[in-house]
C-alpha cells in the first residue's frame, strides 16, 4: 500500500493511500496530490539513502510520497 502524506503541524497527515491495482484509490490520490500542489506544497519521494527527488506528478508506484512546504532563507526565529 502506497501513502501520500503531508508534513504539517500534527507531525504528518496521511492524505491518501492506494495500491496500483485500485484505479479509484489511485485517482483519489492523484487528486489529493494536485490539491496539495495548488496549496503551494511540493512533492518529494526518497530514492535511496541520502537521496530524494522532487515530483510534479504523483508517482503511483512509489511507496511513500511526501508533501513539504517551501523553504526559504531568512531571519532567525525567536
Amino acid at each position, binding site marked *: 500500500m502506497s501513502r501520500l502524506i503531508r*508534513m*504539517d*503541524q*500534527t*507531525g*504528518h497527515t496521511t492524505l491518501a493511500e492506494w495500491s496500483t491495482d485500485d484505479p479509484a484509490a489511485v485517482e483519489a490520490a492523484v487528486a489529493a496530490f494536485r490539491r496539495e500542489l495548488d496549496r503551494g506544497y*511540493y512533492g*518529494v519521494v*526518497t530514492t535511496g*539513502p*541520502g*537521496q*530524494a*527527488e*522532487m*515530483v*510534479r506528478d504523483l508517482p503511483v508506484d512509489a511507496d511513500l510520497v*511526501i508533501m*513539504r*512546504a*517551501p*523553504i*526559504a*532563507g*531568512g*531571519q*532567525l*526565529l525567536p
Partner: protein
Amino acid sequence: MSAEQVLPEVATVHWRQRVDADKLVRDARLWTVTTTAHVVPFVAVAGTMVALQPLAAPVSAIALAHAWIIPELYAQRGANVVRPRRKGDVAAEDRAVGFLGDLVDHEARELHARTGLVLEEASLGVWLVGEAGALLVRRGSKRVYCYCVRASDPDLPSGDRIAHLLLALRADEQGFATVANLAFSGARWRVRRRLEPQLRPALDAAVRRAYD
C-alpha cells in the same frame, strides 16, 4: 541537472549565483577579507595610540576588545542558525521525530537524539541540519559555513522542520545552499565554542566524517 530536480524555491532568489564548490571558496575568501577589514583597523589604532601616548593604553584596550568582539559576534550569528527552538505539542513532536527517524540511518538518528541535529553527507561536504538552519563542514577544510534556512510554516514540530530541510537538501544540495542565507563562514573553532554545549558533539562528528 533536469529542471525537475532544481528546487523550485531557487526561483525566489533568481539573482543569486548557484552555490557550488567554487562559490563556496569565493564566499570563504569574502568572509576572511571582511573579518580582516573589521579587525585590522582596530588593532592598528590600538598599536598607534600606545606608540604615540602610552597613557592611552586603556583606549587601546577598548580598540583591541572591538577587534576581538566583532568576529565573535559574527560567529555567534553563525552558531545561532542551529540553536534549538521551543518545542510545541508533544504528540506532534513525537510523530515528527518518528518520521524524521525513518528518513535517516541509525547513526544519524542517535546523533539527533543527543544533539537535535541531523548529520547528512553530500557533495559539498558534511551537513548538520537543524530546525532553522544548517552547518556545512567542507572536506579537508577547517572552515564551517552557517546557513539560515527554514520551512515556511512556522508552526511545524521540530522534527518536521528538520525533515523539510533534509528533503530539500537531498533533492538539490546546491539549490538548498543557494536558497539559504549564509549567516557566517569562518573557523570551526570559532563556531564550536559559540554553539550550545549539547550541539558540539554534532559538529565534532561532522568534522570526523569530513576527514574520514
